[in-house]
């Protein structure tokens, strides 16, 4: 159905372009009293058709029709087909070759672009896998080592040693849990063709869940909350959006050195709800700001400091979640110091509930 629709569109487009350029050629011939320019004009027409239609067939068709049109209208005898004059014949063949080649070239160009996009995606995927496997090794080594040490030297270890190692194991496991949550989120949106399951979520309940979850991990970190009083419902995948806000808050706790204030601000702007996570810490270095949502997949030469990379993936995950929700996301340094992560979601339209 869809294929047929685009075919009709392509045919109409081809006809329209050829007619338009036929008229232009007529005008030019009339204006300059010479048909010398027509070949060039028709070559341009074929080029456009080949570039903007889905199949090379249209390009070749257009080139055949152009040859006929030039022969018919713009070569002696005018408005009559005549292939017996060798001059006309040669000009027709040359034009056919030129237009066919243009058509073939543009088709090839399109294929290459598609291929390039695919390789790019493949490369991203491979990078992600490599980065993750690399990052998982560090905490796993620590967990494996600590637990083996406990098992093998149980008698000789002091309670203090045991406690310290158990703490290490817990800390690294927590990090792994965070990583796995993020990966799960990615797989939840990365399935091609699978649309997000959005359900209406009450803003207040969302923020409540975020704060409860956040304070479980960082009980001593206060979060200032500023949000509208009224009842706001936003269609979203609640698990994923919770993940985004928690990632951003966690990011601030880990990286905003010297932070004394962490603020979660929510406000409406037309049909959008805007979320801001604001801190007054050290801000983000200029050279990192540009690629902050994609940086995890680039710059892999940095030595394995896994804490940093985790948040790298955290922010990449945030960006892809918001993108999947058709929202916008950005990060910037504030003039007062510290930085601000901002994203927006579309609000529920009236009469479109559930």
């Amino acid at each position, binding site marked *: 159905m869809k294929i047929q629709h685009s075919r009709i569109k392509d045919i109409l487009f081809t006809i329209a372009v050829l007619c338009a350029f036929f008229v232009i050629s007529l005008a030019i011939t009339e204006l300059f009293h010479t048909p010398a320019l027509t070949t060039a004009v028709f070559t341009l027409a074929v080029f456009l058709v080949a570039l903007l239609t889905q199949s090379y067939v249209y390009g070749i068709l257009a080139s055949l029709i152009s040859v006929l049109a030039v022969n018919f209208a713009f070569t002696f005898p005018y408005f009559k087909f005549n292939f017996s004059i060798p001059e006309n014949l040669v000009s027709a063949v040359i034009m056919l070759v030129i237009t066919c080649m243009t058509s073939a070239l543009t088709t090839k160009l399109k294929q290459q672009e598609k291929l390039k996009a695919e390789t790019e995606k493949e490369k991203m995927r491979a990078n992600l896998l490599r980065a993750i496997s690399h990052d998982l090794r560090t905490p796993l080594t620590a967990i494996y080592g600590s637990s083996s040490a406990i098992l093998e030297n149980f008698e000789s270890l002091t309670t203090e040693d045991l406690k310290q190692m158990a703490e290490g194991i817990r800390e690294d*496991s927590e990090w792994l849990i965070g990583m796995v949550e993020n990966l*799960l989120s990615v797989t939840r949106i990365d399935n091609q063709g699978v649309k997000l399951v959005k359900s209406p979520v009450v803003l207040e309940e969302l923020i*409540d869940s975020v704060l409860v979850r956040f304070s479980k991990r960082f009980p001593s970190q206060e979060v200032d909350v500023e949000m509208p009083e009224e009842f706001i419902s936003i269609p979203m995948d609640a698990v994923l959006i919770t993940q985004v806000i928690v990632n951003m808050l966690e990011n601030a706790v880990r990286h905003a050195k010297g932070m004394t204030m962490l603020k979660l601000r929510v406000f409406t702007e037309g049909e959008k709800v805007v979320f801001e996570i604001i801190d007054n810490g050290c801000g983000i270095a200029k050279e990192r700001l540009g690629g902050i949502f994609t940086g995890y997949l680039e710059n892999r030469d940095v030595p394995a400091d896994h804490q940093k990379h985790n948040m790298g993936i955290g922010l990449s995950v945030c960006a892809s979640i918001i993108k999947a929700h058709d929202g916008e996301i950005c990060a910037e340094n504030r003039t007062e110091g510290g930085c601000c992560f901002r994203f927006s979601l579309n609000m529920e339209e009236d009469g479109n509930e559930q």
Partner: protein
Amino acid sequence: MNSNRYKILIIEDETNIRNFVKTILHANGYQVLEAGSSREGMMMYLSHTPDCLILDLGLPDGDGIDFITQVRKQAGVPILVLSARTNESDKVEALDAGANDYVTKPFGTAELLARVRAALRIYQHGSMQNLETDGKFRVNDLVIDFESRQVMLGENEIHLTQTEYNIAALLARHAGKVMTYSEIIREVWRWSDAGSVKKLQVNMANIRKKMGVKPGDNRYISNELGVGYRMNTDG
């Protein structure tokens, strides 16, 4: 009553998880029984009549939901479900089948113990715990008087509408248990339509406002996104 005597049955096929759950429950003075499959679990349940079940939903030999339904046919023993994070609908299904509560993997010891305590309290006092002899429900400074349909916060009465009161009272009667959206709607409105969940959410927002709680403060009622609400029991 002595909590040392409580018998808890863990049905979980992962030996490592079973072991650590057993260890923390032991350390906290509970008696622990274990089963690695749903068949073994059913046998243990029938022969030992435990006070609480901890059930993994992903058992190799049979559906956890069936297990819950089967137990619920005859007994009100509290069932705590261990679930993987990925799907809210699994949790809702388990709760609707009669499970009391769920803990999402990976979970910490403190969380698990708190849920076990709450579940056992339900068993000990019947469905109305936190209920003093005077027919009132209490958690922190919130008091719900079922007879006079009055809700007090400390010294002050808060005025709820009929519907709001019905919701609050329903949650209080099942305190400690997560009530799913559809359960609450069925009990409060008796029928449901496309807008029911929103109606419930709006009422809950009003209740929260009247109780004066801010997001992140779940002193009285905790909300489980996409699943339902729970009246708390712990102070």
